[in-house]
């Protein structure tokens, strides 16, 4: 946006004036203050920080995959119950006594409660849920206009559909192990 005309004229006059411009009153004191204020910058340097997240400008069309991958990885960790694990410190998997031999058996899923899990159980369920999300992303990419080879498009669509259906089934299976009468 071009500056208003009055300001433009003033700037041009200043350029012409240059050294012949008036010195401010009490110029000595002000120049002394200026040198005091600039003193730190004799030693320090203002950092040339380019602090920027690349999320595309208002007119760019798309962006790279990496911010999404980072967010997706964080989402996978949180969905697997990482904060629950940090606070409650459950074991990696539970143990149970075999009724016949008396030996120790490993139990993968903490049954009976909705709000309890073991570490491996959380990670595998998180993987199942992330698989479903990845399936939807694959379907989205299959219909992108950047994908030109029809074979790729068909593969992405089929693998996306298989991912979604299988992850739904997996999640239902896992929940039914914990809560036997789920959806029955």
């Amino acid at each position, binding site marked *: *946006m*071009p*500056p208003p005309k009055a*300001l*433009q004229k003033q*700037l041009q006059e200043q350029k012409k004036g240059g050294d012949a411009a008036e010195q401010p009153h009490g110029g000595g004191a002000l120049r002394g203050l200026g040198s005091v*204020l*600039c003193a730190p*910058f004799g030693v320090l340097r*203002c950092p040339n920080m380019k602090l*920027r*997240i*690349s*999320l*595309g*400008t208002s007119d760019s069309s*798309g*962006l790279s995959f990496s911010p*999404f991958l980072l*967010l*997706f990885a*964080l*989402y996978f960790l*949180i*969905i697997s*119950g990482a*904060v*629950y694990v*940090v*606070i*409650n410190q459950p074991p990696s998997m539970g143990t149970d006594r075999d009724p016949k031999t008396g030996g120790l058996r490993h139990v993968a899923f903490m049954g009976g409660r*909705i*709000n309890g*899990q073991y570490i491996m*159980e*959380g990670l595998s*369920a*998180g993987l199942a*849920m992330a698989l*479903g*999300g*990845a*399936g*939807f*992303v694959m*379907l*989205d990419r299959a*219909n992108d*206009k950047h994908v030109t080879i029809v074979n790729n*498009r068909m593969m992405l*669509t089929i693998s996306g*559909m298989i991912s*979604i*259906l299988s*992850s*739904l089934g997996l*999640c239902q299976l896992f*929940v039914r192990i*914990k809560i036997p009468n789920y*959806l029955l």
Partner: protein
Amino acid sequence: GRGGAMSFVTPEKREGRTAEPALRFIILSLCYILALLPRLIAVARYESVIHEFDPYFNYRSTQYLVDEGFSNFRNWFDERSWYPLGRIVGGTIYPGLMAVSATFFWVLNAINLNVKVVDVCVYLSPVFAANTTLVAYYLGKEVSGGGRGVGLVASFLVSVVPGYVQRSVAGSYDNEGIAIFALMLTFYWFIRSVNTGSLSHCAASCLSYAGLVSTWGGHIYVMNLIPLYVLVLLLAGRYSERLWIAFSTFYVIGTLLSMQITFVGFLAVSAAEYILAMATFVILQAYAASWFVKQHIPASHQTPELLTSAKRILALSAGAIAFSIFLLSIATGYRPLWTGRFWALLDPTYAARVLPLIASVSEHQPAAWTSFFFDLHILVFLIPAGMYRCLQSPTDANIFLVVLVMSSVYFASVMVRLIVVLAPCACILGAVGLSHSLRVYTAQLRGVWGGARRHQEISSQWEVAALMLIVFAGMLALYVFHSVWVTSEAYSSPSIVLAAKSADGSSIIFDDYREAYSWLRHNTPPDAKVMSWWDYGYQVSAIANRTTIIDNNTWNNTHIATVALAFASAEAQAIKVLEMLSVDYVMVVFGGLTGMASDDMNKFRWMARVAEGVFDGNKTVAGIRPIVY
């Protein structure tokens, strides 16, 4: 466009009259009804009764407001709870919920529909949940830049999402029922004001934020999320005048309005939880000022020396401000700290170490994976899809959605109760992702059957598109089925009335709580003092109408520890505590042969822990193991 003789799906932008507005109205009405019906399962199964514990205090306050009027309500000092101490109710609650219910009560009674306060309280949450469905439609439309399809999918997803249903069933008369409505409305108006930069939209967002502050303590989340979003936009180089207008207005007027609530008061400018908002306001003004100055200097004058001196000025002023704040805090000795409840969200291990009372509440536990899947179902798959779509075509509104959902997913994993905030927001994000796929496949179908213009050059494989649409429809049907099942099995129990299945399959109803409270009400003198563990305090106050020693407000840890000491000590010591508190009756809940998992015997570990935390001379309570029958 290309008109055909047959068009099964009317296109979005066709001139002339279409059936689309009628279709939209029908879909939104069906979503509204769908939001109401599952929430009424509890009423159909038991009766129209208020659930849980906290809602009873809200009910008692609403009754007081209806009886005494608003100015007495604001000055209410309750001497019948926290017995020797009393509680300043007027200054320590969020009055929005009671005010709304009282308004409904007065309006309905004025037109001679003589409802009781109990009825209004029971049915308020489902009505507001259905209203949230409508707000979700507008929010989905705004976020996707006018896409009505996104709005419709969002409103459908929000209507039954179990994470929201769990706090808004009929009878759950709690703050979240209304607060989530105000939350979504605030987000809608804020996004609208960022998109348009119009002051009237900013004013609407401030008003809805004021409504949110008056109903819920979770407004701190909004007052931290929106500044975080502004910072993300600044870092992404997406500053615009609209953003500056929207946030400046929202911060100033929103904070001023939030200070009108007595419970918030001057905390809004002095508490540490609001510091991010204040800092972002200052940073945004500095950014806007530098942008404004840069606009008015022609490019030829923007020399490197000018840039250097501008940066030096900025560095010097920032240093001066920081130094003066440092001096001020040393001079006045005022160092704001985050209060325990909110600090536990940032440092998840804090509550278990320092505040056993907060850590013991079951809804403050962190979320395991099943809680996420139960409360969101297919939304856990749709969140990455929506995130991908938002990051592929980022607009200011899309980035807000991503920041919103990522932060609420983290906070929901720290505290299960906050899934109620995650659920509607995940619905909007999921709607963005799902609606895109739906639109692509329906466009392929439309291209085959004749209708609007085609978007792609490849030959449309309509069989694949039709198959996909059938699979999506099946998935959404499974979602509704799951949501209604979860509502019916898990979230429709009133907690004050218990049910169990006997050996031959018939269900037995335990109404012991209400019988006990009725006994207290009819068989004890009106000024009797009843001591019980704090879970039952609100119910004793509301139903039995007797003075209680401690209740669910848990504002005084020492008082609770005194009662815990009485419960955990031998009788000879306990009677001294009871005499000190002038207790007449003691109420204990015992499950007995029913094996109830949450009776006072099973809570005894927490009583011992609380007593130990304050009176550490009480070594007898160390080493208690959980009781197993």
